[in-house]
């Protein structure tokens, strides 16, 4: 163990370590000593989701979200609210503004780094799936069962979309 990386509060209690307000600058190996066992990052914070309409553009929108990053996994939650629909039309196509770039893995059916759920929570109750694009900071919306709800159900001022998603990053 590299004790020099632990600045304060190390107690060895037989088989487990109790760490009291430590700062570990380069990571902690858990369950092994390989690179796959290294937990090297934890962070909590906020981010701002941006809604993308199927057509036109919104005059204004607002949003707020929180994230937790554990190792290479990001869990992000948040909402986006259309405060003035302007020329926005069709429905909601996508979200952008994710706090970390997603990993650029390749899959046969399309490159994704994670999935999530979105629900319009103010007027319609419609929901959809979020596909986090690989190597990007945005998520595309696909409606369940191939229906068009989220993308063509119409959009109005005050529509509010809740987002919950998990994805991988290499940041």
């Amino acid at each position: 163990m590299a004790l020099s990386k632990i600045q304060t509060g190390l107690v060895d209690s037989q088989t487990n370590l109790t760490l009291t307000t430590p700062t570990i600058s380069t990571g902690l190996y858990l369950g092994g000593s390989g690179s796959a066992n290294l937990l090297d990052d934890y962070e909590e914070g906020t981010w701002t989701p941006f809604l993308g309409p199927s057509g036109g553009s919104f005059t204004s929108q607002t949003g707020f979200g929180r994230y937790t990053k554990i190792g290479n996994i990001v869990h992000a939650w948040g909402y986006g609210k259309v405060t003035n629909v302007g020329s926005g039309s069709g429905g909601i196509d996508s979200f952008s503004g994710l706090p970390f770039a997603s990993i650029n893995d390749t899959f046969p059916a399309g490159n994704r780094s994670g999935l999530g759920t979105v629900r319009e929570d103010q007027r319609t109750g419609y929901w959809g799936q979020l596909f986090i694009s690989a190597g990007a900071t945005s998520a595309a919306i696909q409606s369940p069962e191939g229906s068009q709800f989220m993308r063509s159900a119409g959009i109005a001022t005050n529509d509010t979309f809740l987002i919950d998603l998990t994805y991988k990053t290499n940041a």
Partner: protein
Amino acid sequence: MAITKRTEEDKIEIVGTHKIIQVRTATIIEEDGTEISRSFHRHTVVPGADVSSESAEVQAIATAVHTDAVVTAYEAHIAENTPTDAE
């Protein structure tokens, strides 16, 4: 006893083949110059994004790394990997 609040971009990273810029903004609360709280807000700058509201440092980085070739490649990548309802 003076409580002060300030923000700073304490981490700017260039990530991945598309050179996405990750910016972490720290909000720091200090009491008589001693930090008592720090919270984070993150945003990202993708190739081709409007950077007019970014800090001068982020603008300079975007100018340097988001070349026309990078922007073109990123836009093509997003277009190729955007699902449709038919998928």
